[in-house]
Every structure is written in C-alpha cells, then in structure tokens.
C-alpha cells in the first residue's frame, strides 16, 4: 500500500524558520512534493531492497543535501525539514538522506580544502553518493566499545586494516568517511578519512534485515588499505569530531520526525472510516500532532543555535534525539492500531513504519547510548581513587 494518505497533508516548510520567511522555502516545498508524489509510492519497494539512487539524485537536484553546508548558509533547520519530508514518505530514504548529509558535513568542515573541492560539488548535487562509517567510532569515542579499524603510518599517509559490519549508502564506485585508531602512537590518536569503495575494499553482503533493505548496507573489509594524505578529512580526528558530533546527531532528528509525521498521516487516513472506534485508542492523531509540532519547533530552535560545541547544546541534542526515538515508537505503534487489520498487512505503511521507528531507536546513537551518554555527562567528576 502506498502512502497516499499524505497527499492532503500540510507542507512542512511553514515552520522551518521560526519567526521569519525561509529563503529555502521554495526548495523545501518542491522537496516535499517530490517526496509525496515520487518517493511515497516507491516506499514499499525501497523497504524491500530497492536502493533509490535515482530518487536521491532528484532530491539532490532540488538542493536537499546542501542546506546545512557553508554554501547553504549552514541552514540546519532546512536540512532537517527536508529530511523530515523524505522520511515522512519513506524512512529508509530518510536514513539515506542523513548518511548523505553527514558526509557533506564532514567535508564542509575539513581543513583539507583540496578534498572538499574535489568531492563536495558532486556529492551535494547527488551526482555521486556516499555515507558514513562512524557508528563504531562514535561509540568508541564515547567509551562504549573499542575502535575497530587500525591505522599504521606509511609513506605519504597511513595503511588501514579491519572489518566494519554494517555500512550504509555505499557500493562499488561510491565512498564513505571512516575513522581508524593509529597504532603505536598516543592513545587518543585517530585519523578521519575519505574511503573510496574500490576494488581494494572487500564488500560482504549483510544478513537480511527486517526492513529498510534499500539502504545498500554492506560489511567492508580493509587489509593494508592505503589512505593518502590528500584523502585525510582530519588528523587527529578527535578535535574534529568534537566540533561536528552534536550536529551529526541533530541532523538525525529529520529521520525520526518524518517517521512520526508519516505515522500521523496513517492515522488520519483512516479517521473517516474508523474514527468511531479509533476514538477509544491512546495516542490519537491530534494528540500526536501536538507532540510532533512541539518537538519539530524545538528542533528548529536548536538547529538555529550557534553554541554548537558547548556542553549544553550537546545535552539538548541528546535529549531531543532520545525523545524523537520514543515518540517514533509510540506514533508508529499507534498508527498500526489505528489502521487495525489493514495495518497488519505486510505491505501496509504502518507495518513498515513500525520497523522504521525501531530503526530510529536503535541506530547509533540508540536510546540506550543516548541515556548512557547523558548520565555520564551529568555525573559530577570527583578525583579518581588517588594514590594513598
């Protein structure tokens, strides 16, 4: 079943910039239209395995992947709004939008301007495609698990080895950004680099996932893979990651907000026929919409803040990101209950959104990681067990 219930919904562009006219409003409107009319009908196919590069290219042509970059005046609010429109139609495509957006974010902030000039124009326009392999490194830098990729200094760069299990939005001829720990050096030395997926990279098929199969997700194996200096995004990686990590997470709001908004579409779509019994359900569409509007507005406010490297901003982002995970789960479940038996059909939108919502809640940073990190940041530091 296609997401036809979206067609009458209000555009997302209205509230993308609180208190002002958004210079990107026209682009956002076209992106929302594209999502409703071109992407939504393909959502079930994408969920089942179709990797929608042709649709991403159309979104790229409308500017969907460049709002948050310097060239788009670093308009994170519009980037999240666009991602919300995409995810409202198809969660897997929303995730691909995020993957694409963060690769752009890295290059936009890299001091390696040569790399940015070489790769960014095609990437932003979605003439080339690539994602991010930072799930493991982000958890490693937070202290949750060890870093998988290892780098050794070599003439003119590094050689990198290791195996990463699930990297999305890649395939041969594409690329991603990755982080490796430098062996034999200081404990806090990692490199952040552009990784072209060429014949030197072993791509392994992932086990079948329960949904979102069209994200082109692969395992990658590197063995003494040479990374030249011209492909370096940041060395050392940590100060760079500290600058971008809050916005890396903030951008994911678009993914979650879209799933929530799409779930509300599903509920509203059956209101005429089933409203007389649906009135007895929890989390009704009007209540969900009020929560969605509140969360969307707060996301836009946060996206407009300038203290993006402050601890307060980071905590605000972590809190918001955990909230959108919880709201996605509630909204998707409620959508299924509102549609009843038809929502239980394998091809139904709510059925797909339940899986998308769980993806929002488990993809890095998962709810548990967010809470773990917030607890860590909230705990008073006292001297460690000092020498007696």
């Amino acid at each position, binding site marked *: 079943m296609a997401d036809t219930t979206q067609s009458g919904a209000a555009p997302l562009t209205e509230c993308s910039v609180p208190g002002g006219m958004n210079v990107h409003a026209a682009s956002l409107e076209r992106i929302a239209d594209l999502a409703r009319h071109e992407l939504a009908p393909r959502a079930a196919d994408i969920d089942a395995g179709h990797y929608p590069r042709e649709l991403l290219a159309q979104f790229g042509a409308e500017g969907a992947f460049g709002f948050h970059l310097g060239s788009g005046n670093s308009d994170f609010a519009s980037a999240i709004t666009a991602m919300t429109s995409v995810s409202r139609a198809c969660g897997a495509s929303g995730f691909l939008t995020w993957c694409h957006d963060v690769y752009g974010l890295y290059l936009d902030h890299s001091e390696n301007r040569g790399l940015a000039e070489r790769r960014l124009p095609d990437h932003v326009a979605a003439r080339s495609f690539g994602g991010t392999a930072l799930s493991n490194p982000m958890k490693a830098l937070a202290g949750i698990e060890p870093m998988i990729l290892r780098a050794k200094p070599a003439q003119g760069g590094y050689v990198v080895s290791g195996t990463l299990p699930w990297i999305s939005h890649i395939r041969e001829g594409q690329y991603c950004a990755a982080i490796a720990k430098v062996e034999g050096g200081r404990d806090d030395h990692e490199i952040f680099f552009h990784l072209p997926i060429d014949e030197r990279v072993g791509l392994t098929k992932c086990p079948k996932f329960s949904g979102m199969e069209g994200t082109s997700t692969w395992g990658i194996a590197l063995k003494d893979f040479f990374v030249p200096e011209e492909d370096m995004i940041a060395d050392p990686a940590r100060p760079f990651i500290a600058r971008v990590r809050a916005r890396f997470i903030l951008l994911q709001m678009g993914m979650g907000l879209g799933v929530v908004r799409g779930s509300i579409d599903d509920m509203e779509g059956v209101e005429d026929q089933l409203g007389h019994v649906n009135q007895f359900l929890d989390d009704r569409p009007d209540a969900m919409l*009020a*929560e969605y509007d*509140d969360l969307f507005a*707060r996301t836009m406010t946060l996206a407009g803040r300038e203290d993006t490297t402050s601890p*307060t901003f980071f*905590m*605000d982002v*972590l*809190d918001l990101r*955990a*909230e959108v995970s*919880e709201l996605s789960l509630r909204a998707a479940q409620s959508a299924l209950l509102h549609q009843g038996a038809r929502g239980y059909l394998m091809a139904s939108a709510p059925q797909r959104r339940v899986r998308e919502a769980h993806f929002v809640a488990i993809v890095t940073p998962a709810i548990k990681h967010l*809470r*773990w990190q*917030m*607890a860590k940041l*909230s*705990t*008073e*530091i*006292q*001297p*460690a*067990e*000092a*020498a*007696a």
Partner: protein
Amino acid sequence: MSTDELAEPTDGLGPWREYLCRACGLIYNEGEGDPDGGLAPGTRFDDIPDDWVCPICGVSKGDFEPYERPSAPAVAASQTGISKADVGIVIIGAGLAGWATARALRELDPERPITIVTACPGHVYNKPEISRALSRKASPDALQRATGPDEAARLGIRLVAHTHVVGLSAQFRRLRTTRGTIPFTHVVLALGAHATMPAGLNPHHSWRINSLDAWRAFHTNLGTAPRRIAIVGGGMIGCELAEDFARAGHAVQLIGLGMVPLDTLVPVEAGERLLAGLRRADVDYFGGQTVTSSAREADGTVSLTLADGRALVADRVVAATGLAIDTRFLKNAGVDVSPVGISVDASDLSTNIAGIYGLGDCVAIDGAPCRFIEPIPKQAEIIARDIVGLDHGGYRHRAPIIRLKSVETPLTIEGPPHAKGEWRVIAQSPETLEMERWDGERCVARLTA
C-alpha cells in the same frame, strides 16, 4: 546507628528515647549519649546539663524535641511497586527537601502515586552532620539514617535512583530522565545545588563534599593516616570542614578570598575572632587568595599555586567555593530561573508553571537563595498542602538563624547575613562578641561569636 546494639536501660524509666535537634536535625539517642560532649552512654535527656550543646550546630538542650522514629510502613508493601503508568507527583531530588516533601505528601494522601527521581542513591541522611563527622568519628554509614529503598518502601513511594533528569515538558506533563520518560501531574523541584569549581582547580584533583555519596568517597579515599588537606573557600562550609579536619588530626590549609574567613557574611571583628579560633585548632589560613593553578604530582600529591605566587602542597584538596544550580533543563522547560535559583512564589512556592513547585537549596525566594535546612520542613508542608488542595495560609519566609558549626568559635547570625552595613559592637570580651547591624532606626541582624 542502630539502637539494637545498645545496652538495655536498667533505670526503670522505659526504653531509650531519642530527641531531634530542631536546628540541624541531629538525633540525640539516650542510649548512645554524647561521649565527646561529656555525656556517657545511657544519659537520659532530662539529666543532660543545661550547658550542654548540640555536637553539630551548638544550640542548647532547649532546642531539642522528642523524636519518634517511624516504624510501621505508612502504606502496605503491595502498593510500593508503582508502575510507570501510574501518573502522580514526581519529586526531583532525594536530599532533605525531597524526602521532606515525600513524607509531607504521604501524610496528607496515603494513596496518591509519588515518585522520587534522584541522581544519588537516595539514602536518607542529614547533611549538616557531614561538617562535623570526621572529628566525631562518625562513619558515612553512621550518618545514613535509612537506605533509599527502605524509606521508599516505608512511605509507599517509588524511588528511581541513580537517574538524571534531562528534560521536562510542561505542556505534555512528561519528565525525561536517563531511565526513560515519566508522566506526572505535579513536579516538585528539590534539586539542591552543586558545588562550583573555580577556574584554577581541576575536578580530577579537587573534591567537593556536598552529599553523603561524595563524603563516602572522600572518607574512603582519605584513609586513616593524618594528611595535609587544602580547603579552598573561606565560607561557612570551608570553615566548618577546616576545623573539623584539623580536630581529627589532619594538617589543614584554608585558602580564602577574604583577609579573614566569612568576610562576605560577617563584619571583620567577627571574622578576626573566627580566624583566631581556626588558628587555635591549628588551621593555616591563607587570606586574600585564589588558586591560580593546580597539578597532580607523580607522588600523588597536588600542588597549588596561589595568586601571590606561593606554592602549597597537599595530599587532598577540597573545594568549598560556593553552590550553583543546573538550569539547562529548567530553562528549556520555560521555568523562570534567576542566576541564584529557581524563582518561586513567596506565598506558595510555585514556579511560573502551574503544577511545578520548588524548595530548598535550588530556589530563590524574592530573588535570594536560602541554602539552610531550617525552612525546608515548612516549605515541604506548604507544597504538599497546595498540591492536595488543602488550606495552608501561605508560606512566610523568614531568614533562619545561621549557626557556624564550630567548637572553637561558635557563631550565630539572626537576620540576613551581610558583612556590609552598619555593624555595632554591643558587647565584647575575650570570650564573646555581640554585634548588631542597623539600618537607620532598625536593628536588622544580630550576631554572637
């Protein structure tokens, strides 16, 4: 401190009884006595001489009242497992203010779901006792009056411990925490305040003692051998800890901003008296100083550099340089917060958001914080009555009597404490100093030292 291990009374006057210090919350147990204060175990309250003073805060016997230790659970145990679906009152914080509110609410309403969310373990203790614990040889366990889970079970409330509040939605009545989202009808902010850390100190080198948990960690880390302890901050907590640590046998260096301690609260005459008392206790006072840098040395000691260039070496460093509150989630929620605390209505302790209240160290009443325990029980009662819809006649805030917990120089201040203003010496002798602060024709504060 369990009464089970004490000898049974043989004087025919019934079981040992307990008495509560109204000023600081210390409990005098007849069976235990106060050996440091000259009262042998088994001294009946009636037999305590009139010149005996509270070993914590120095008030006299007349400021104690009989204390009945709560025994039977207020609510059956079957009601303690409140599920997340039971929407009720959420109290944030499990210090004196949080528990006082829980008790006051439970007394008025035996059934309403109450949840305490707290970053600490939630154990019940009386914070002022920490200031005198070392010299009284009171272990952290002895300061703990009940475990959090036991007290929660007794009151029939849910305790969500080791949990940080990260967000609050006033519109949707939900509290976001590091263990999930909790719906609520009312929220009581009993957050307390956290110790601040001045720029020259490093949190990895410097302890802050502002909770039983922190005290327990410091106490364990300190061990039993005499140490060199540097205390940064010449306010009330700094002075109390300095004297207590010195009396417990440690070599104490106290570093204060003022030329004399407590220089912002009391006039210089009183400060000088305090300084003399600290010196009698062998505390080294470094006045007019800040710490510009600190470093951990290879041998585990910490070296401190003072503003005048002097270098100090200490085995342990304690920062007591003031308190602040974490305002991030409150501001995001739209709660009015001033730099010194959550703004609450002076008549009912409500915030600007309906159904959200605040009390204790985290609030500012008429623009000023009041970080003393004396007003807390009354504040808790007013909030509880307001929430359940009972008349309370309005809260009337009064500056509490402030008592510096010192053996050498007990000091009390009645009225708002400020060093500035017209202080008049009323009486002065080698033993005692009495002063009054006058504002025009009115005496607004009085101190004895």
